[in-house]
């Protein structure tokens, strides 16, 4: 990791009632970085594949433990939905809210909440990452319009 910040971290530990990440295995480094405002992804040294979510091997060449790199935190909407019926408890008072598949500048695609007016979202919209710290161990990447 480079230590460069991808986006600001807001402490929501007291108010968050939604799901909380459980850092384990290959995910541990990803979630640890979120506490520092860094969005990281794996970048294979053998073949150059950039991937999320974190895995034990490169999805393209099978190289073991591809190392993490920081992302700029900038991406665009590949697709989205506006949820009028909420998912997990904790999202209920947010409806209607936007969930998007975000293509990061560096290549990997990430599924995330987008904090914006649902009428404003469209495919191709430029986004940047922020973080909501929801536990002592992790902050959720949440995107906002750039």
């Amino acid at each position, binding site marked *: 990791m480079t230590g460069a910040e991808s986006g600001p971290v807001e402490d929501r530990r007291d108010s968050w009632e939604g799901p909380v990440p459980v850092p384990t295995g290959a995910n541990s480094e990803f979630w640890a970085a979120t506490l520092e405002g860094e969005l990281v992804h794996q970048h294979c040294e053998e073949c150059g594949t950039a991937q999320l979510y974190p895995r034990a091997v490169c999805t393209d060449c099978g190289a073991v433990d591809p190392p993490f790199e920081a992302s700029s935190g900038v991406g665009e909407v590949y697709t989205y939905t*506006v949820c009028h019926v909420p*998912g997990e408890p904790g999202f209920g008072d947010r409806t209607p809210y936007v969930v998007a598949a975000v293509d990061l500048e560096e290549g990997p695609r990430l599924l995330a909440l987008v904090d914006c007016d649902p009428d404003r979202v469209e495919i191709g919209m430029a986004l940047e990452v922020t973080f909501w710290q929801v536990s002592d161990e992790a902050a959720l990447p949440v995107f906002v319009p750039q």
Partner: protein
Amino acid sequence: MRDAYLVGAGQSDYGAFPEESYRSLFRTAFEAATDSVPNGLEASDVDEAFVGNLGVGGRQLGLSGPAVTEHVGLGGVPCTRVENACAASGYATRQAVQAVKSGMADVVLAGGFEIMSDMSSDATKYWLGVSGETEWERLSGTTFSGVYAQMASVHMETYGTTREQLSRVAVKNHSNGAKNPHAQLGFECSLEDAQSAPVVADPLNLYHCCPTSDGAACALIVSEDVVDEYTDDPIRVAGVGAGSDNVGLFQRDSYTGVPASQRAAETAYEMAGVEPDDLDFAEVHDCFAIAELLAYEDLGFCEKGEAGQLIESGETEIGGDLPVNTSGGLKSKGHPIGATGAGQVVEAFKQLSGNAGERQVEDPTRGLTHNVGGSGGASVIHIFEKETEVSA
């Protein structure tokens, strides 16, 4: 390899049945299946069983296969529970075909069941979400409807598919389901009803989503060596294909098709030696309206991007060139997860044996069933074909 034949199939009603258990529903389906075999079939004839079940609610997760087969008199027979989310009993059917073709069994039961209607809406959402990339999907706030809605958004953006075309899938399937006494939502709906329903996960509204259901279904697959004992009008399993993929939609390159279904279709058509044009009807996995449109393209019923025009043309209605979801589909007949794939085989059997009542397709020879797990992490296709003589 030996040929495999479909000699009987039956199902329970689909719906919400607080008075029934998973065992009583399975018994209803098993008896309907054995009763449908033209020359009769006894429980004691069955050599092996494969039973599809997701285990929604966490009830009877262990040994749920033997738990239902012993209840219908198959105690002692080898039984395997097959879990592949919504494609569980499509895969159970494939296992039955493999057991017969391999020569290890002559008469095999392929069934499935699910109980879903007795849970809170939060619990139901939780259990519908267990077949995706659960950790990352839940953290983003998406629902299962939201996952398919993301596919719809890309298809609409890329090909100009419209909300009205999605609604036409609901109108057609309800029109068919209204003719199916087993259907959970067996009523017709107008295009206006389907257009004005409340939004669930934009662009999908309530009429673009299938219900949650209780139900069970069973099919009986036998070998070419014994098929003559059971029927004079054999229906051959002409083609089988299956495929899997990343379980998380966001792990796939394209959202405008389901690669697992494309692979399954290629394999099944090749084995059967047929093309989409040779089909007389199809039961496809319409858990959401967009899923039926994607199936049109993935299974080669139309060119990529033209599914919206195909539903508009009316050619997939009963009476059209290729009727799709004559049973009402998941949308109107219902979607008891573990039973759905076997339930599609029930419709294929009814159509090919001329017992589909008001929704009968005129003199069909060949039909296809298409069953998808999750958002496309698993897919399985069967092609059934009526024969006049049993091939040696």
